[in-house]
């Protein structure tokens, strides 16, 4: 009887593969929904870029919604996104928090000086450890966090005026409606 074990194990495998083929005819594998949407943002404690002695934590940011924008001085798409943040940043209606990702502090500061600083606050994750918790896999990425510290929206890739109009603003408007 034990000699049939490999055979039955293999049957299970075939069933799984059959399922896989069937599933793929119905689903697009490329869409990976962020598992963090509608989940509390991961706990973080990161130093401020301009004053590393001060630490910003998730708890300290509770109370009002804000937007986290992941950027780096070495990231080219961030450079493309930057003018959009400079012009639209004030009009979005929530504070903009810069998340400096895997960057040298000096280079990040120089970069912000050169291109302008749209952020009310910049936190630095030099090693990119906390970014793993956020599921960041490249810059730029943007997270909308609500007053209770829950991630409500995520954008992978640069924000463009069209994306802000079509996706980000409705998401912020939805937050407003919930608030009393």
């Amino acid at each position, binding site marked *: 009887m034990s*000699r*049939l074990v*490999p*055979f039955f194990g*293999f*049957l299970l*495998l*075939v069933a*799984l*593969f*059959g*399922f*896989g*083929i069937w*599933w*793929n*005819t119905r*689903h697009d*594998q*490329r869409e*990976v*929904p962020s*598992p963090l949407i509608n989940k509390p943002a991961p706990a973080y404690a990161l130093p401020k870029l301009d004053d590393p002695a001060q630490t910003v934590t998730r708890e300290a940011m509770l109370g009002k919604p804000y937007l986290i924008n992941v950027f*780096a*001085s*070495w*990231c*080219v798409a961030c*450079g493309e996104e930057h003018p959009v943040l400079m012009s639209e940043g004030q009009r979005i209606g929530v504070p903009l928090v810069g998340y400096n990702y*895997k960057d*040298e502090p000096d*280079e990040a500061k120089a*970069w912000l000086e050169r291109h302008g600083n749209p952020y009310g606050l910049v936190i630095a994750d030099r090693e990119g450890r906390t970014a793993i918790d956020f599921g960041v896999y490249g810059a730029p990425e943007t997270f909308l966090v609500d007053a209770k510290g829950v991630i409500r929206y995520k954008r992978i890739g640069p924000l463009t005026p069209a994306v802000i109009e079509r996706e980000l603003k409705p998401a912020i408007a939805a937050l407003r409606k919930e608030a009393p």
Partner: protein
Amino acid sequence: MTPELGQLALILALLLALAQGVLPLLGAWRGNGALMAVARPAAAGQAVFVALAFGVLSWAFLHFDFSVRYVADNSNLALPWYYRLAAVWGAHEGSLLLWIFILNLWTVALAALSHKLPDVFVARVLGVLGLIAVGFIAFILFTSNPFERLLPMPPDGGDLNPVLQDPGMTFHPPVLYMGYVGFSVAFAFSIAALLGGELEQAWVRWARPWTNVAWGFLSAGIVAGSWWAYAELGWGGWWFWDPVENASFMPWLVGAALIHAQAVTEKRGALRAWTILLSIFAFSLSLLGTFLVRSGVLTSVHAFASDPKRGLFILCFLAVVVGGSLLLYALRAPKVAGGKPFGVVSRETAILIGNLMLTVAAAMVLLGTLFPLLGDALNLGKISVGPPYFGFLFTLLMIPIVLLLPFGPYLRWGEKGGLPPLKNVAVRAGIAALACAIAAAFTTGWALKAIAGTAAAVWCCVGTLLYVLKRWREMPAGRRYPAEMAGMLLAHFGVGVFLAGVLLTEALSVERDVRMAPGQVQTIGGYDFRFDGVHVADGPNWQGDQGTVTVMRNGREIAVMHPQKRTYTRGQVQTESAIDAGVTRDLYVALGEPMDRNDPEGAWALRLYHKPFVRWIWAGGLLMMLGGFFSAADKRFRLRREAEQKVAAAAQESHA
């Protein structure tokens, strides 16, 4: 007209494969010599026609026959001839044609070299290989025809995937397939043994050189793939635990187990059922790899076209071949646990432990690879497991193997022999490993992986060298290292070299993403990288930006490196990293993007790596490959066969 000839040749090859698959098996069952004799000519004929089809497709590529859809999709007028030739196996249809062509090479080699084996056995082996060929040729003809026409004919074609336009990638698929497909021989041997109800384990000795050669090729193919990913993908990584990589790694692990299990079965007569099962597994995992890569069931960085119809076809084929052979195994595997008894401290016990670890590791990799699929099936959401899972479990499973490895050659078969030499080896290799680990601790600043890597590598290498020394002293010249033993020692030494490469690279690599303006200097790992700007450099079918990075150490110039960013004719962008290779370190520079698109003369994003000992990874893999080839060349496998034949002939005569 010629493409139709290719298709016709494939149809004829299918018919011959049917003849090769059915008639000899019938003949072996019925004891009909005439039917059995069909096997060899049918195999040769099939090979001729598949080679013809392969030649026709190559011809179409070389002569820009864009009326063939496959040619139009994968080449264009600007593509150099060597890449047009490599484009034959650059996409789905052609790579299957290569698969079947290589199966034919193995089959013909087997047909030519098996004259000393019993006819019935050869008929069964070639029959099984014929049936496998039927499945694959039918797959090509019915779902993936490379000769399909495209009318009207376009004036120019598409392009070969730029990541494949690299010398490493040209050789990677054929060599890898030599390995994958080579396991079909060991598979066919064990199926033939099951069918014939062979009570003796003589077939295992005949199968051994074939398995070793296949495993050697598979090692080389994986090394080539890893090297290519390192040089071409621009991340400087050498292994990603990607589904497609795992697909080649699982048969390799099982193959390594099989090589050792075959030795036990041959020498001791034990583990017979296990050896058969492993032969089935090794080839099944090769087929499974083909399925995973070709069906698109799993996403992967290797973006191959996926088509549910193709997936379904391979799945059915897989079900028949693997399901059928496992059922056959269940019904006919040797019922008695035969063979001589195991000694507690003996070579077979050590091999058994190694086998256990290797197969569990293969199962672990399979589970991890299929996890996203399981997540969908059990409605757990999108899940995937990555390097942390694989890396941790794999390391854990390999620890016993590394610990046992130096003792392998000293251990004797069975219960005879004692312990004394083991203690000597353990003490000497242990002291060497400890000393080097302490040295590593001080030079690397207590990097844990570097210490572990040094210790493990020295343990394996010194242990192996001690045995080399012992043979040198104790045996007369000429009889010191028979090929089989030399192969084993080479491969075991390779494991040590590989370990050093992996762990030292992981521990000591420095990787930096930086923005650099011309003239700026970055210091990494004691090397000063000066960015000297970017200028335009064009190739036959691409336009590119080429950066210049001068590397200096203590003010002395070490290398001038030229990373490129190419834009191919069809718009695909490809990074060509520049690598300054060395025995103890690689310097690696990849060009990112210009910080300002309108100013390519200005600052760029660059990726700078200092990778110590990374080359040892592939050197270790190549030593393992050599080990496989060497041991297959052992005279013992040939001489014994003749002796066998004499005995068999005598037995037949006495029957008659």
